[in-house]
């Protein structure tokens, strides 16, 4: 039906596990339709046939954790018309951003026999720390439906619809019974962006926040609830410091819990 040329799409990875790229490779029946709609011209995970840029749409997975990756992501940006970062690593620094709380220098000295060969950044960064990002698909891994929806929207010439509402909205649409209310289970759903289909509550488990913070979330009120459910402030802080723990809203929530109520109060009054 379409007369115009198929958009050229590239897929890159930084520091990551490849799980988000697999959501694309794993798209099953949608793969054929996808192949008919776009030209994937650079996707090392899928094919050794690699074409140079520029690209119409570029998907980037993974966090930026070395000077080399920092340089690479800037080059990718220069070659891309629309840049979409995919997954918790690319959008918040990922679970590897837990190292941002410790002394990277000490890790390198302890782990590697010749530390001089290791060039690393002090922190694991989301890609938006270095370049302009057009759209962010969060999640660990991303949701395949959300990825295909975003690509379909771009192909049709409209902006992808990426909801900022919390997981609860989708959890209730699907008729799942609230695990906080009916089981006393700590759940990050009220402060986490929807997109996963409320996967964990569907199996009776609390959400662990892998899609990152929702609309400006009230983490303080939820933390209070966690403590009322029997968690220590440290345990509550650890709930926020996980897959997307470096996302500012979750980082601040954990910091506040670890500082304790007294200093948190002092911090609040200027």
């Amino acid at each position: 039906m379409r007369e115009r040329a198929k958009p050229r799409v590239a897929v890159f990875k930084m520091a990551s596990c490849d799980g988000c790229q697999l959501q694309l490779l794993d798209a099953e029946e949608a793969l054929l339709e996808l192949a008919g709609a776009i030209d994937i011209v650079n996707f090392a995970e899928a094919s050794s046939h690699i074409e140079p840029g520029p690209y119409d749409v570029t998907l980037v997975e993974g966090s930026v954790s070395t000077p080399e990756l920092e340089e690479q992501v800037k080059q990718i940006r220069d070659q891309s018309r629309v840049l979409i970062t995919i997954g918790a690593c690319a959008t918040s620094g990922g679970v590897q951003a837990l190292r941002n709380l410790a002394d990277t220098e000490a890790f390198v000295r302890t782990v590697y026999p010749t530390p001089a060969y290791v060039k690393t950044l002090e922190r694991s960064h989301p890609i938006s720390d270095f370049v302009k990002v057009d759209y962010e698909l969060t999640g660990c891994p991303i949701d395949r439906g959300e990825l295909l929806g975003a690509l379909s929207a771009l192909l049709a010439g409209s902006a992808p619809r990426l909801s900022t509402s919390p997981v609860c909205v989708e959890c209730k649409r699907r008729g799942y019974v609230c695990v906080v209310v009916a089981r006393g289970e700590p759940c990050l759903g009220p402060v986490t962006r929807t997109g996963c289909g409320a996967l964990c509550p569907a199996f009776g488990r609390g959400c662990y926040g892998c899609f990152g913070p929702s609309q400006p979330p009230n983490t303080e009120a939820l933390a209070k609830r966690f403590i009322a459910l029997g968690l220590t402030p440290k345990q509550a802080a650890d709930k926020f410091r996980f897959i997307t723990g470096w996302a500012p809203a979750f980082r601040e929530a954990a910091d506040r819990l670890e500082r304790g109520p007294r200093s948190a109060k002092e911090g609040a009054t200027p």
Partner: protein
Amino acid sequence: MRFLDHQGFERLLATLADDGYELVGPTVRDGAIVLDRIEGADDLPRGVGEEQGPGSYRLTSRGDGRYFAWAHGPDSAKRFLFPARELLARMRREGGAFAVETAPDERPIAFVGLRSCDLHAVAVQDRVFMHADPGYRRRREAAVFVGVDCAEPGATCFCASMGTGPRCTEGFDVALTELEGGFVVQAATPTGEALLARIETREATEAEVEAVAETERTAVAAMGRQMDEWDMPALLYRNRLHPRWKEVASRCLACGNCTSVCPTCFCHDIVDGVSLSGDVATRTREWASCFSEEYSWAAGAVVRASRESRYRQWLTHKFASWIDQFGTSGCVGCGRCITWCPVGIDVTEEVAAIRATDGEVEVVTS
């Protein structure tokens, strides 16, 4: 009034199923009494009870043979009459035109065991959707309602003070009151009368009729909460700058659980989708919440950016501007928003707090 024994009750459900109705009734799933498609009386939560409080719900075992000795769980008829996600249109490109595919016919629903609060909630949603929404009207007009008087209201219930229960007074085809060994039953519509005529019942005894009244008295006395509606909607309008809004916003997660479990909340979003090939387009309606920041996104900006403004919008709409808009309160006193709030915010407490310090901040209108 007639009396229906347990065998007759099973026969009632079987007759509805034989007539082609999809039975929707209470059943236990994932630690709660939910509303779902059921096969018959065996799927009902017999002998099951529950304990509810702000932000807390637990099932209990009663050890008796009662089918309906519990207060409602999170679901109401809303989930079925106004589905959480409904495909409105699906269009396929064919040649130079679009072919519109229509939704397949649905079986009519027979609701079994709705409480008076939920029957009233259907009437509230009727005012929103009946004139404007063909899908809702089709499902609503085809549905049959078997109500059951509430004998065991929950700790978060306040239907008695909202005038919507606990006894079924309207909105049903057939209503039951559960007693030892069976039900006192009455029909309120030709559909209900025709249904009862096909099932074996007997004249209810004087003692059984008295037990119906007693069930209502006991339930009213056991009601966990109350709402003082006096001076609504003016109370909330003149207190729109009350400091309580900021205070409750500090506790509110803005997660939208209250609006999702509310049997009358009707906010929704229309979502358009397109296939990768560009040959199939869909238009879907899905539940949304006024607690979502994006819900008030209009013309490039969020209109209600603070949680405070969103909580105030919800509560004020429910108890005040709903009256101006639809001629009735938007609240039926079911208390679900209290039980299913993950942090246990209690609307009866919030309204009472504002009432207690009514006029603390004066609103000057010119």
